[in-house]
């Protein structure tokens, strides 16, 4: 006997929804302060990614060998230098801002590609016959055992070095994770009664997969994707050294972190700020995905509508 199921309180909920979707969503966001902070931070990042290169592109590239490794929290040289300067004397604040664009393009590109392809293959593997499913799973095994560096080198030799190819390499290596997770969930969800109900109505396999199964899988995929974001942002820099990724003077957070590595002992701020940006972005995405998991689920939504008390 679940008590909440038939409580009369449900009627007020419907009213909440009638007030308009957007307001409802904003209201739910407002009540979960963590998610709110995360959203604001992400909006700032997106703003930086879109407008950063336009606003600060030049400042980010202005070298000054005599003012190199200037420590942070000093605005003697102007507020661009508030986070300090790097080993070429370029101000870090504009660099972090400008780097948001490439970082987001690559990370979002790679994560989107891998999650979409992985989820599609996983849906097929989970819903199609077991033979097809097995072939796809073995393919995932092969990709998983194939060293990503070798893949990168192969791509570098066969194709030309470019950002697009970097995204391809990063995406391919992450596909198995999504594929396996999706398949596992599909195997479970396809047993549910409402899938059968849809079948009885004559729904096509595509409709069942995309309309009924996929929405149930998405929250899990989003959670993995947010954690992958951090991974991709760091992995990207380790492939850049092969020459297939972003090349200076273009910049990403991952590249800034890895360039700042040798200065960790003498000028910690070089790697710290971009690292912090990566950490905060990951955390924000994770908090937001937790919030979305609840907000997207009609049966859980009430948790947000009564306030952030039990955001479990």
């Amino acid at each position: 006997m679940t008590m909440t199921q038939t409580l009369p309180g449900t009627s007020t909920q419907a009213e909440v929804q009638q007030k308009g979707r957007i307001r409802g969503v904003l209201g739910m966001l407002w009540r979960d302060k963590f998610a709110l902070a995360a959203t604001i931070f992400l909006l700032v990042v997106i703003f930086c990614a879109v407008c950063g290169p336009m606003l600060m592109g030049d400042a980010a590239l202005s070298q000054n060998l005599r003012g190199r490794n200037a420590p942070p929290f000093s605005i003697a040289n102007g507020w661009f230098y508030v986070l300090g300067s790097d080993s070429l004397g370029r101000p870090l604040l504009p660099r972090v801002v400008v780097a948001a664009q490439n970082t987001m393009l690559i990370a979002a590109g790679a994560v989107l590609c891998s999650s979409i392809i992985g989820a599609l293959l996983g849906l097929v593997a989970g819903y199609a016959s077991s033979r097809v499913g097995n072939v796809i799973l073995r393919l995932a095994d092969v990709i998983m055992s194939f060293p990503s560096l070798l893949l990168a080198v192969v791509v570098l030799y066969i194709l030309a070095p470019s950002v697009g190819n970097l995204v391809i390499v990063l995406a391919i290596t992450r596909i198995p994770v999504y594929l396996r997770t999706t398949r596992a969930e599909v195997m479970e969800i396809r047993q549910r009664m409402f899938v059968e109900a849809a079948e009885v109505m004559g729904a096509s396999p595509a409709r069942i997969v995309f309309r009924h199964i996929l929405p149930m899988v998405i929250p899990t995929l989003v959670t993995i994707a947010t954690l992958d974001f951090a991974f991709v942002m760091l992995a990207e820099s380790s492939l850049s050294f092969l020459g297939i990724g972003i090349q200076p003077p273009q910049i990403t957070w991952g590249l800034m972190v890895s360039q700042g590595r040798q200065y960790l002992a003498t000028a910690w701020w070089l790697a710290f700020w971009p690292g912090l940006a990566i950490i905060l972005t990951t955390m924000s995405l994770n908090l937001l995905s937790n919030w979305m998991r609840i907000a997207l689920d009609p049966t859980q939504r009430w948790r947000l509508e009564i306030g952030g008390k039990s955001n479990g």
Partner: protein
Amino acid sequence: MRKLILGRVLSSFFSLAALVVMVFFLSRLTGDPAALFLPREATQEMLDNFRRLHGLNDPLIVQFGRYVWDLLHLDFGQSLRQARPAIDVVFEGFAWTFQLAAITIALVSIAAIVIGSLAAFRPGGIFDRFASVVSLIGASAPDFWVAIVAIVVFAVNFAWLPTSGTGTVWHWILPVAVLFIRPFGLILQIVRGSMIQSFGSLYVKTARAKGVGNTSIIFVHTLRNAMLPVITVIGDQAAAMLNGAVIIETIFGFPGVGKLMIDSILQRDFNVVLAAIMVTALAIFVMNLLIDIAYAILDPRVRT
């Protein structure tokens, strides 16, 4: 169970074969090992000589045939760089990686499960929030940051531990600790989610009605039920670790298979690359099998 194992062995064999074929041909698209092994100023004669010695002049398909033939005789070929059997090179590295992975994953599993379970007991509580934030920072912090800061703090400033290297148990502490952080964050999240779900299960009510205490409810009744998704993730993480932990190996001077693989790829030491991939793939396959068996042990419903 026997059927499961047999089926897995068979299908993994095909995966492995596909992997070998792919790696063999793709890796040979990536340049000439002779140019890398010999100095820049090498004469054409030296280059030709090198290629002749290592059979690099033959058509690719002949090289492949020879490789497969040798492989059937359990000969994985010679390492170009080290002038000894590739498989010896790989086994040496793998032994280190395996130990590192085993120790780390064991500690991570224990810590993540205990802390994740406690966090899930009161979702949204202070402990839960704290654990979540710490684990998220851990999961997204650049690992070389953590590694170098750890060396500076624990080895240089406090001089509690050796900076790097191998030899004694003390040498293991820092690499294991740094390697620990990322999977810990990830597994903790999964444990927490799974445990929250299990706490809502009806059998928890039964246990309460029976008078079972909280500790037993968490760690005896709920945990085992919540372990299935957790085990999958632990398996994935362990698999990733068996592929080597390049940054840890590089910084701590740890002679594992990760750095070996990277070096071999960059130096086009194909035989070592292939042997390393086969060994790690095999290890991952065995581990996946163990995970399936663990599934069956944990959940009797899977057995039938």
